């Protein structure tokens, strides 16, 4: 009987080939859609993570209380050793030191007199270390407007907005005026080697980027860091794990009576970020849920229709003495088989597509250029994200809904008196 049914299944393309195609496509769309939405939500979080908070952030307890003020007198000391420890104990992340500092930027004329001055918010990031991924995550290769990246510790990049405001251009010198971590007056000369535009609205209005070594020199912060940021290697923020890690770290390493003991914060612990994280999770669940529901209804219907279309065959098989349960099970098994094959194919396609977009992104820069002026915050490249649930999410519509539809069709046929089946057949 199995051979007999298999023959029919393979020959009848409306029962095998077409449903497999429909299920594959639908599942591929579900898988890719989920991965893509996740990637888009993640890129919203990633902006904040790159500029400010990391996926995890280690600071001193005291610093965390007053982080708005960039209190470098409360910075982490012995940051290199701490980073080494974090790399060993929390290898899920790559760790990088940051110094955030604010002050004035002074542009002198030929005579050394002040030509222009502006407040500046500077970030010392790790440009130079081997394997540092800072240039990558800041997307500086793409965001650079003029000039080059810093190669020396006294070289700096400033945002093109700040450059315009100050009327400086690449090749000029500027003087940073601020205070060291010991609150002593400090001036430090930087050569402007490049300008950048992060294309995130006003975020970079007063921004200067220097190598962390330059920041350390300027502020007298040898082997110190304002924060140490950790990023998941795939740059995908997993909130649950991040929260677990920071709780574990704080229990083991943070001493609430010592204001200089290190303290870890997950992305969601930062100002307002919990709302955004929760919102993006809720959006994923709601959008994903609605999407999944629609698709399930579609496939459920297909299962139902495919089952009902075989009314004639079912009636005949019953008439010539095949037991009802047998007929019913063979219909359901067939639906399961088709659903399973379709889902596997669809999941492979969907994952492949998601992976491709995860690695390469969909670049909207060209298309958006006309629309995007500098005040609109919009990610320029959308990345998708392959997560473990993408491997099984397709089975809900692909197998579950298809089989359910067929089961209902089967029950409808089952319930009908056989004599009635034939009356329907004759007409």
């Amino acid at each position, binding site marked *: *009987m199995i051979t*007999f049914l298999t*023959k*029919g299944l393979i*020959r*009848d393309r409306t029962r095998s080939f077409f449903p497999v195609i429909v299920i594959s496509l639908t599942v591929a769309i579900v898988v890719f859609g989920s991965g893509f939405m996740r990637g888009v939500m993640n890129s919203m979080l990633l902006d904040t993570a790159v500029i400010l908070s990391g996926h995890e952030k280690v600071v001193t307890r005291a610093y965390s209380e007053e982080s708005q003020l960039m209190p470098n007198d409360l910075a982490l000391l012995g940051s290199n050793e701490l980073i080494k420890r974090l790399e060993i104990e929390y290898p899920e992340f790559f760790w990088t030191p940051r110094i955030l500092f604010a002050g004035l930027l002074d542009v002198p004329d030929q005579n050394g007199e002040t030509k222009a001055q502006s407040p500046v918010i500077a970030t010392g990031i790790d440009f130079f270390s081997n394997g540092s991924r800072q240039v990558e995550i800041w997307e500086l290769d793409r965001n650079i407007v003029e000039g080059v990246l810093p190669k020396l510790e006294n070289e700096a990049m400033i945002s093109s907005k700040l450059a315009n405001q100050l009327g400086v251009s690449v090749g000029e010198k500027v003087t940073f005026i601020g205070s060291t971590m010991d609150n002593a007056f400090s001036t430090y000369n930087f050569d402007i080697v490049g300008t950048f535009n992060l294309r995130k609205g006003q975020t970079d209005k007063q921004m200067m980027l220097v190598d962390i070594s330059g920041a350390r020199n300027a502020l007298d912060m040898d082997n110190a860091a304002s924060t140490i940021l950790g990023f998941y290697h795939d740059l995908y923020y997993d909130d649950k794990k991040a929260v677990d890690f920071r709780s574990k770290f704080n229990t083991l390493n943070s001493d609430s009576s010592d204001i200089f003991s290190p303290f870890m914060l997950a992305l969601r612990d930062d100002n307002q970020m919990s709302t955004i994280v929760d919102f993006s999770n809720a959006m994923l669940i709601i959008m994903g849920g609605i999407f999944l529901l629609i698709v399930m209804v579609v496939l459920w219907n297909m299962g139902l229709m495919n089952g009902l279309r075989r009314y*004639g*065959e079912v*009636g*005949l*098989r*019953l*008439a*010539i*003495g*095949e*037991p*009802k*349960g047998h007929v019913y099970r063979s219909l359901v098994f067939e639906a399961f088989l088709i659903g399973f094959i379709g889902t596997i194919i669809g999941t492979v396609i969907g994952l492949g597509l998601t992976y491709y977009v995860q690695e390469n992104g969909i670049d909207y820069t060209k298309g958006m250029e006309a629309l995007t002026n500098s005040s609109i915050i919009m990610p320029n490249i959308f990345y998708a994200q392959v997560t473990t649930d993408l491997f099984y999410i397709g089975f809900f519509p692909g197998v579950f809904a298809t089989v359910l539809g067929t089961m209902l069709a089967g029950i409808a046929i089952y319930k009908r*008196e*056989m*004599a009635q089946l*034939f009356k329907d*057949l*004759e007409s």
Partner: protein
Amino acid sequence: MNIKNSVIKFNNVTKRFPVGGDYFIALKNIDLLLNKGEFTGLVGPSGSGKTTLLNIIGGLDSASDGNVSVLGQSLENTSHNERAKVRRKNMGFIFQSYNLLPVYSVFENVELPLILNKIDSTQRLKKVNQAIEWVGLSDKRDSRPSMLSGGECQRTAIARAIVHQPALVMADEPTANLDAENSHHIMKILTNLNRELSTSFVFATHDEKIMGYLKRIIHLEDGQIKKDQLIKNPKFS
């Protein structure tokens, strides 16, 4: 009539269909005995209950009241599966609209009842070829139903109905979709099978051509048997 030879026995059978909140009585107090080797027709005007009676004989529908026995076994209180088994082993069906499975060849359509009866493949090959030969379709063995004429389709259906050599074959208006020539061809085949295999046939029909072959005619009207007629010398055959 000999009880031992009885294939079907109806004892005071009534069939009611629920219609709205009420019942429609399609068969009223039917007593009937069908013997081995009969070639019987149920005739009567449309709505008289021919199909209903045939369906109950075949176990596709069940009686509301009274008792039905098939081959000496009462169908009362039998499960679906038990009735399916009776059909699988002892009955064949021929329908007005053939009901062939379109994706299978003539051979495979005819093979299905044997597969259900778990006959092994060498036996199947032999029996199917023989059945196809009886109906004269050996040259169309591997054709799909869509490539056959109406007469050929019905001959395939006949082969399917008799391939497992059932005791009883039921045919509901088997010639209604066929022209005169094909109708006669089919009735000749059935008459031969009746003679050679002593399979019993029961027809539901109002086709005059069929009536010329029948050896017994049961007249139905309003769900009741009005006349039960034995024909000594049928017009054809």
